[in-house]
């Protein structure tokens, strides 16, 4: 079985913002060749490292973001390298790069005229502020982009003396890279009709700006500015806490409070099961909620008893969460049809029984060291053309010789 993009040829210039879209395309079956400069991509210097020893072949950042690709060393600063690059480009569907403006001369491509020379090429640029009209080479990192582009303003704690928070994991590259892939595939779908490629300009900053949800739609709609809150949506005016520390020190996330009669009945049953009735006298309010057929949100404004029942259900959920291990609380809620979650670290989440049952984690063996790498598996399951890590991340220039000899044919 081959992936859905089998046959698609992609030349990627190694870099912070080209790596993720390159991986997405490669794991979907595209024939992706990553071009590294002499000495290897700078991102090989990014940790964490296998065995905690910094080395170009031990960068787990590199190992993850370059699965299913081949690596070719080319010195684009030199005439021979550039000539080879142009030969490869002539035969390729997508060029993916995020070069700083000062280095775009290395490509010897002009956005205005490249399509005369490479009429079917889809050229994708993913840069911090886009190529269109942006000042050249404003220094930026994931942190400063997330701060300027929206997400950080949403994220942090009720206590505003603590700084707002950047979510971890280099997410700006994921957000922008996702748009790079959708736009590249859009251009390819159009090419199937027109026969012609085009330039795709992606801005990381713009991608973050349109991926900050309510903060943006609230402002666009009524000018309101949301405020950050611990573990829940930033809102205008604030809302009740939803994150609770469970008995085992982990955290759970409560959903919208229950409203239906059967929800109240099942919380009563649960309170009794855990043996909390004596210390939670408001259980009678929950019984009342079940008897009266539940509570509708619109009743809260007019019916004081409805509000008391509503509050009692939230209090019961908090108490149950505090008295149970986080995972037990999550299962207890979901099996009773009540939405809730638990906060897992990625390393715990990948070992969760549900994901194990679905065979999510993907093991890849590095043939050079024999080490087995556990990667996250398929983000989407195609029933005919499976997502697949077709090869481990390449060593520096591993395929230079074979690729320059045989070109795009897979070895």
């Amino acid at each position, binding site marked *: 079985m081959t992936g859905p993009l089998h046959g698609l040829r992609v030349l990627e210039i190694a870099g912070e913002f080209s790596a993720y879209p390159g991986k997405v395309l490669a794991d979907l079956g595209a024939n992706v060749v990553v071009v590294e400069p002499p000495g290897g991509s700078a991102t090989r210097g990014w940790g964490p490292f296998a065995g905690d020893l910094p080395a170009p072949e031990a960068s787990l950042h590199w190992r993850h973001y370059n699965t299913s690709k081949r690596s070719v060393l080319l010195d684009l600063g030199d005439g021979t390298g550039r000539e080879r690059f142009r030969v490869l480009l002539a035969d390729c569907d997508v060029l993916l790069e995020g070069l700083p403006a000062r280095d775009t001369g290395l490509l010897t491509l002009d956005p205005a005229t490249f399509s005369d020379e490479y009429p079917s090429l889809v050229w994708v640029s993913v840069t911090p502020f886009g190529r269109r009209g942006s000042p050249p080479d404003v220094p930026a990192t994931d942190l400063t982009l997330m701060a300027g582009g929206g997400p950080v303003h949403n994220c942090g704690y009720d206590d505003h003396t603590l700084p707002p928070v950047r979510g971890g994991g280099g*997410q700006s590259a994921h957000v922008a890279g996702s748009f790079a892939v959708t736009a590249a595939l859009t251009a390819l779908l159009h090419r199937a009709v027109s026969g012609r490629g085009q330039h795709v300009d992606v801005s990381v900053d713009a991608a973050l700006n349109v991926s*900050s949800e309510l903060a943006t739609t609230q402002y666009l709609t009524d000018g309101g*500015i949301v405020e950050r809150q611990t573990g829940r949506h930033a809102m205008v005016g604030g809302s009740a806490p939803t994150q609770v520390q469970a008995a085992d020190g982990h955290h759970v*996330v409560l959903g919208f409070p229950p409203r239906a009669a059967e929800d109240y009945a099942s919380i009563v049953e649960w309170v009794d099961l855990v043996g909390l009735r004596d210390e939670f006298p408001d259980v009678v309010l929950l019984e009342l909620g079940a008897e009266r057929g539940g509570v509708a949100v619109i009743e809260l404004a007019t019916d004081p008893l409805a509000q008391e029942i509503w509050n009692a259900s939230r209090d019961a959920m908090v108490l149950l969460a505090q008295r149970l291990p986080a995972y037990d609380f999550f299962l207890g809620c979901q099996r009773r049809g009540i939405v809730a979650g638990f*906060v897992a670290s990625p390393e715990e989440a990948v070992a969760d029984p549900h994901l194990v049952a679905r065979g999510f984690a993907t093991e890849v063996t590095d043939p050079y060291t024999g080490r087995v790498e556990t990667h996250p598996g398929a983000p989407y399951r195609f029933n005919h053309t499976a997502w697949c890590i077709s090869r481990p991340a390449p060593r520096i220039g591993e395929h230079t010789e074979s690729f320059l000899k045989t070109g795009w044919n897979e070895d």
Partner: protein
Amino acid sequence: MVGSSSRPAAGGLVDRWAGCPADLEARSTALRRIRVCDLSGQLAGAGATRILAAFGAQVIRVEDPATRGGWDIVRGAPPYRDERRGIEFGGGFNNHNTEKLGITLNLRTERGRDLLTRLIAISDVVTENFAGGVFARLGFPYERLQEIRPDIVYVSHSGFGATGPYRDFRTWGPIVQAVSGLTFTAGLEGQPPAGWGFSYMDHMGAYAMAIATFAALWHRDQTGEGQWVDVAGVEVGLSLTGPDILDHHLNGRTPRAPGSVDSNRGGAPAMAPHGIYPALGEDRWIALACRDDLDWRRLADEIGQPWAVGAELATLAARLADQDALDARLAAWTAGLDGQELADRLVAAGIPASPVRTPAERIDGAAATPDWDLWPTVTHPDIGPMRVEGLPVHLSETDWSLRRGAPRLGEHNRFVLGDLLGVDEAEQAELTAEGAV
């Protein structure tokens, strides 16, 4: 493969907008040959088909007349532009469904299901984001979709996917990101997880759903074969934590305890200083990062105080050794300075920096990405003109276009049922009277 463009693409010459009234027609020419029968909604689904609609695909949202579209909790929900309330006035719904067509079909009725069947037969893609298995129980498992249209691309998106022990569990964005590791990795040391402050995974799940749709369409172009793609939000979320997973499994580390993460610090690559520091004013902050020793020397020159310009902190190792002390000194310096002015000054000196910008600043302030046209105005029949999110991409030949607001409930029943499905006016009236549409 370059040769692919010369091969006749499946449906390549179809124009899904041919003959439609001019006011409905999409402006972008990129995907005019694609029609999407879209049962998805909220943000995790609507955010995916929004991208297709922006590029000119004909996206037909199918909503339930019996609940007045109430399955989509965003329909009619705040924020609102003015004092008007009701299912047509939700600002988020307008944003997420711009440029789509909207029809109503009651899938509890046989005639409603029959109409959906006929719509699927003339569509390229079917999308939905019900909980796992729900669409199949409504009578439309993948096998049935394939009978209706053999090369159909069907993309389902749920929190936990269509199989596995949690299949029937219900989720929304904050649950998905908590269960998939992303809430855990957003926080300050010694504090509980901060999470994302919004449904980050509704965005990323939607983008994954769009990628899956496009990839399946590309494959269909090459081979004529359609397929089912099942997207599980939790798996999309975990796929965004790769280096963390590799690090823990390959290096045999025990799972981290809550409160041990400081995601404002530099991780990969290692940097110091790297953080979010107070700026002048109430709750104002500036993010700055020194990528290397040169960045630090530039920053030390800007600070100009003995603790900074001395040799003690010249190396990354020295700066990493006591980050708490370094951050405290830096914060004492930044706290007296205007965040925007300081960021401008640092950027001019070559140091990555940005104020933590409010929505007003990043949307209506000096644009970080000038001339991008990121906030187009669309017109909704009830709300009126309103700005929405544009796309962070520009295509040189077939760019996106957003101009029409979200569809009113059943706004395009007449066009879709009449012009596309050939249901005559008398039958349309009958269907309405019966509650099938």
